[in-house]
């Protein structure tokens, strides 16, 4: 049923249950907000969105006030303006206003609110006692002095990710956002996904900065510094320079990286294709053992392993699933291991002089590259990880005018890839890429689906399922004749939990499950430009599929550089060298609070 109300003298009609804020937005009236996060939470605590409602005794926060029939709302009246301004002034009174030295300078919601409201000076003295900055993890920094207690991070950590690391503690003036029961994030169960840092409106949670380390390597003439970019970067980096979400900037990105001084500009897409070959064969081997050989020790479903936040989550909360997780390393780590072996050998460079830098949409990748087992090359395989946001900052630091750059192309051999690798960037993409290859390996025919897309696993629904029946199989795969493979795709850890529970209870009989830690997949990663709303997710995903469809090669097994890699170096999928360099194992972490 529709409700009719008036906002700033304009008649508005909205669905029953809409808030005043939503009603205003539907009319194109902008009310400032801070704590409200679309689709996640509205604690109604910041009072930045106060409006005047006729007949109400006090001003109401529009983000949590339901629109009702006949309501008369004023958003621009003097009282409303002054009250909103006061809310921001009080926040600033508890805030060290040192914007020039702050990581969020120029892209800070609080700064912007203060500007918009014309707050030129802070009338109240700063009295908050200093809290030490928490640098205890590889991925994230927490500076609680900057926290404005909007609780967006808590909403995301508890509801979207279902991890629950963050919670408010103490009361009144002493309230802070705590992690677990200790002072430092490293002591809490945290998967380092960085989703909290992606929604924080101020400089209170952010990625641990590796820019200086990377400059150091680039400035060292004895080092050969190569860079890989994750599939999701190209669809988001442009946002750091004011481009619309969903603008693909692959060519400019490559040129910018070359200008920054990287010796080779490679692509994580290359090892995404490789992942499909290794993981696809691992999947088929598991199917064969389970279905044809009756080997009960083989665990199905097989879960994907490219998302380090998911791996962390699984190790904390569902270690029983370890035998189900693909042993494939993530594409980032496969790349590092090969750069310091295959590539170094081919180029005749001492691997100790090779520095591998990754550009990732993800903060957990910073943690992943530091894992003890990630040194198959004899060195730390990936040296430094920069988030998309950090790369944006680095390009600005170098004084590069990104928008005027011409398009460049990745170097070979580790820069060559197919459309199947592109779609690793979004939820459903790894599954689709795997199906494109697996189906063709088993039947010898191309996947018979419209434009090679597995439509049921696309899109932002939290949990997606699809079925695929093998028919007219090649001789080697006759045991799959008529078999229907069931697959599932989950993104966001709260959805991953649902799948894990269904698998643990035996309720689900999937064969293959893709999990990406972040909502929307890597395009919505914790290291991407802010703010990633669902509209932004959809725009980035659209750009990625367009990139895929524009490619001459769209199946991983068609990548000639991968064929060459097996011929010259690896031998065969799942072979001895692969096991040494490209596969890994997992271990249970501290028992989780919820186990």
């Amino acid at each position, binding site marked *: 049923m529709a409700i009719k109300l008036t906002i700033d003298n304009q008649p508005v009609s909205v669905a029953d249950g809409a808030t005043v804020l939503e009603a205003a937005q539907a009319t194109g009236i902008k009310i400032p907000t801070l704590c409200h996060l679309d689709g996640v939470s509205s604690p109604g605590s910041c009072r930045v969105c106060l409006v005047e409602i006729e007949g109400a005794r006090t001003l109401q926060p529009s983000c949590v006030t339901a629109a009702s029939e006949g309501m008369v709302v004023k958003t621009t009246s003097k009282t409303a303006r002054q009250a909103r301004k006061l809310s921001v002034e009080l926040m600033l009174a508890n805030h060290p206003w040192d914007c020039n030295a702050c990581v969020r300078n120029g892209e800070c919601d609080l700064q912007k609110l203060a500007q918009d409201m014309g707050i030129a000076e802070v009338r109240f003295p700063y009295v908050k006692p200093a809290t030490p900055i928490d640098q205890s993890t590889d991925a994230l920094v927490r500076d609680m002095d900057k926290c404005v207690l909007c609780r967006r991070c808590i909403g995301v950590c508890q509801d979207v990710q279902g*991890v629950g690391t963050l919670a408010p*503690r103490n009361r009144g003036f002493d309230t802070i956002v705590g992690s677990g029961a200790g002072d430092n994030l490293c002591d809490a169960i945290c998967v380092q996904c960085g989703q909290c840092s992606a929604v924080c409106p101020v400089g209170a949670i952010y990625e641990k900065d590796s820019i200086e380390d990377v400059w150091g390597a680039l400035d060292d003439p004895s080092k050969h510094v190569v860079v890989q970019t994750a599939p999701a970067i190209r669809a988001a980096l442009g946002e750091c320079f004011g481009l619309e979400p969903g603008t693909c900037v692959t060519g400019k990105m490559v040129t910018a990286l070359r200008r920054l001084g990287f010796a080779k500009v490679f692509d994580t897409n290359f090892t995404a294709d490789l992942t499909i070959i290794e993981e696809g064969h691992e999947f088929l081997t598991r199917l064969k053992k389970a279905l044809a050989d009756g080997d009960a020790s083989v665990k199905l479903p097989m879960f994907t392993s490219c998302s380090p936040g998911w791996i962390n989550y699984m190790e904390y909360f569902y270690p029983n699933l370890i035998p189900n997780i693909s042993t494939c390393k993530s594409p980032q780590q496969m790349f590092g291991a090969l750069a310091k072996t295959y590539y170094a050998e081919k180029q005749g460079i001492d691997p100790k002089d090779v520095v591998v830098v990754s550009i990732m949409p993800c903060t957990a990748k910073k943690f992943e590259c530091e894992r003890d087992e990630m040194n198959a090359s004899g060195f730390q395989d990936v040296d430094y990880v920069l988030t998309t946001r950090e790369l944006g900052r680095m390009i600005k630091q170098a004084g590069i005018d990104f928008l005027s750059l011409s398009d460049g192309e990745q170097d070979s051999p580790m820069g060559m890839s197919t459309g199947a690798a592109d779609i690793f960037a979004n939820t459903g993409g790894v599954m689709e890429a795997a199906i494109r290859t697996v189906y063709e390996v088993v039947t010898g025919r191309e996947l018979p689906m419209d434009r090679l897309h597995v439509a049921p696993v696309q899109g932002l629904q939290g949990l997606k399922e699809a079925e695929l029946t093998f028919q007219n199989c090649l001789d080697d795969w006759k045991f799959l004749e008529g078999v229907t493979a069931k697959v599932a795709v989950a993104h966001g850890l709260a959805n991953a939990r649902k799948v894990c529970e269904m698998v643990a209870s035996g309720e689900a009989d999937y064969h293959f499950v893709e999990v990406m830690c972040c909502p929307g997949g890597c395009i919505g990663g914790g290291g991407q430009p802010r703010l990633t709303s669902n509209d932004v997710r959809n725009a980035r995903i659209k750009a990625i599929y367009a990139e895929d469809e524009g490619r001459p090669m769209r199946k991983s097994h068609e990548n000639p550089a991968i064929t060459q890699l097996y011929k010259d170096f690896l031998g065969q999928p799942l072979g001895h060298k692969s096991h040494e360099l490209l596969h890994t194992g997992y271990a249970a972490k501290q028992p989780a609070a919820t186990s």
Partner: protein
Amino acid sequence: MSNPTTEAGCGNALFAELGEFIEGQSKGRDALIPILHKAQDLFGFLPVDVQEFVAAKMGLPVGEVYGVVTFYHYFTMQPRGRHTVNVCLGTACYVRGAQKVVEALTEELGVKMGETTPDRRFSLTTQRCFGACGLAPVIMVNDDVHGRVTPKKVAAILARYE
């Protein structure tokens, strides 16, 4: 997280009792506060390992439990001493120098307000008005009221409690 108190023998019986109590409660967040009350009755205070135990049993993140414990003044993460020293900070006491008494007490005992001495002899807390304003400034040690306290008298009062 490793859980020394649960693994070592000492607290096992208490943990078992708390565990049983939790089983008997309704599932979900609502039961958290009664459960924490019970835990504090059993242990006397709520150290982190007790909170972790509660969180694990209830399937809640430990941070959430910690948040509740630190929100309510009733809950304490400090073990109680054998004697509780309670300083009145009501208006009358305050005006008559309660703050000086607080300073003398914290100095004498070497702990801050809300803390317990390492030998567990005293816990130090404050309260708003005991209703003995005529005797201001007032402190209570356990159930004994001591009136017209001056910083100088503090040591002698404490000496009476072993």
